Every structure is written in C-alpha cells, then in structure tokens.
C-alpha cells in the first residue's frame, strides 16, 4: 500500500525549489514538518532532540536538493535524512544505542505470554487524554529500531519497500521488525485493556 500524502503538484514544487524558489521549498516543508517531527520524536524520545533532528533534516534536504533525482518519493528521501539525524542524537544520549542495521531480528521470543480478553471496544473505555497517555507510554517503551518501522509502515502507510529504502535495511528486516513492534505494542496494551474497563 502506498501513502496518499504525495500531491500531484509535488514534482513541480520540487523543481521550483531546485531552481531557487524559496516559497516552493517552504510549501514542501509545511507538508511534512509535522510528520518529520513525530518521526524524530519516535526515535529520540526527547522533544529537544526531535526538534533539532527535524530542523537539521530540512536544512540538509535544502542544501542537497540538487542531489534528489526524483527516482523515489521526496518523502522517502527526506525520511532517510531525518532518521539519520534522529539516530545520531539518540546515540549521543545513549552511547550504547544501536545503529539502524543492527540485527534485532530474533525469532525465539515472539510468542505472546499474556493474552486476556479485551472486550469489543477497549479504547472506548478510556477518555481521550488517558488513552493518549497509554499509547505514548506503550510506544516509548518500544525499541526505537522497531518503533520507527511501526511508525513508517502502520501510521505513515509507507510500503514495505519504501520503508526498507528509507531506512536502508532489507525488506525481510522491515517485516521482522514490524511483526515484533506490533506484538510488543499489543502486549503493552494488554496490560491496560485486559483488565476490563477503568474505574
């Protein structure tokens, strides 16, 4: 599945920005700034670092715009720059943090240990703010290498191939990380939803 975020006028905007039209580049930025900020937050788990990473990603994409050949989507190209910026900041804060191509793929502990009945609409049992806190907490505890794949595939709806290209990892790594991310998030939500409605 391919995301619907590309608008028809994007190639023309990029061509204009390449020709030096600053307003065209600002329009591109306004389309993607929210997504890139959330992506960076997903990786860094730190608002200041996320802002820095986002800013640097846009500045670098502007500086290297002539190198963008248009053979992939601009967003995929931008994501790759932003992911590298975010990971660089994450490694500074957590020196032992892994690199993108570190093998996190293991098949030995996939079987869920906790499975409780959630009822028909578990999310509807919570107020918006409370649910948002539950989701944020679950996402924050996820390994950033898994979180970024979940973000790109399930929330941004990039295809497996686009995600692999944006992250510079193999298709099988994308699939394996997505499976692990989904299972881990389910397990985290199970701790809330499996207890029935909140009091």
């Amino acid at each position, binding site marked *: 599945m391919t995301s619907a975020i590309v608008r028809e006028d994007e190639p023309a905007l990029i061509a204009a920005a390449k020709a030096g039209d*600053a*307003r065209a*580049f*600002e329009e591109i*930025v306004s389309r993607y*700034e*929210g997504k890139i*900020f*959330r992506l960076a937050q997903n990786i860094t788990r730190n608002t200041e670092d996320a*802002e820095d990473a*986002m*800013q640097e990603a*846009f*500045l670098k994409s*502007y*500086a290297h715009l002539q190198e963008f050949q248009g053979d992939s989507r601009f967003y995929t190209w931008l994501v790759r720059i932003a992911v590298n910026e975010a990971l660089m900041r994450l490694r500074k804060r957590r020196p032992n943090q892994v690199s993108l191509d570190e093998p996190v793929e293991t*098949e030995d502990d*996939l*079987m*869920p240990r906790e*499975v409780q*009945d*959630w009822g028909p609409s*578990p*999310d509807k049992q919570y107020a*918006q703010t409370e*649910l*948002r806190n539950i*989701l944020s907490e679950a*996402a924050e505890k996820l390994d950033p290498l898994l979180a970024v794949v*979940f973000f790109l595939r*399930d*929330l941004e709806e990039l295809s497996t191939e686009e995600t692999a290209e944006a992250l510079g990892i193999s298709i099988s790594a994308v*699939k394996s990380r*997505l*499976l692990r991310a*989904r*299972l881990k*998030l*389910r397990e985290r*939500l*199970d701790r809330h*939803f499996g207890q029935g409605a909140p009091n």
Partner: protein
Amino acid sequence: MNCDGVIRELSNFLDGELDPAVQRELERHLGDCGECALIVDQTKKTVQIFCDSEPVELPAEVRSRLREALRRKMGPSSA
C-alpha cells in the same frame, strides 16, 4: 499450522500478503485455537487504535523556529 506458525505469519496475514493456501491453513488454525484468534484480533486492534489516535500537533514555537532557521539558510529573499 501450529501456534508458532500463526505468530510468525501474523503480520503477513494482517497485511493480506499470505499465499492463499497458507492463509486457509492459518484461518483453520484460528477456528480451533481461541488464544491465537485473540492474539490476531488484538494485534489488528492495536494497529487500528494507534492509527485512530490523534497525532500531537507540531508546537507553534517549534514551527516558528524551523521557519527562522530556514530563512537564515535560504537567505533574505525567502518569505
């Protein structure tokens, strides 16, 4: 297909990327195994709940600092 096989193929199943024969096998297992059926259903709901959640807006001051940095980079002719 056993429970391990279902978990391994869960993402492909949710994404509709399974070979039809494997899909039938998996669905047969789900008909017999309540626990796997719950896991599959809850994993699907997990993705849906995250997709339905309202994304946090980009804070206005963050947007404003980004625009300022871009203007500095692009020069005085930019908006």
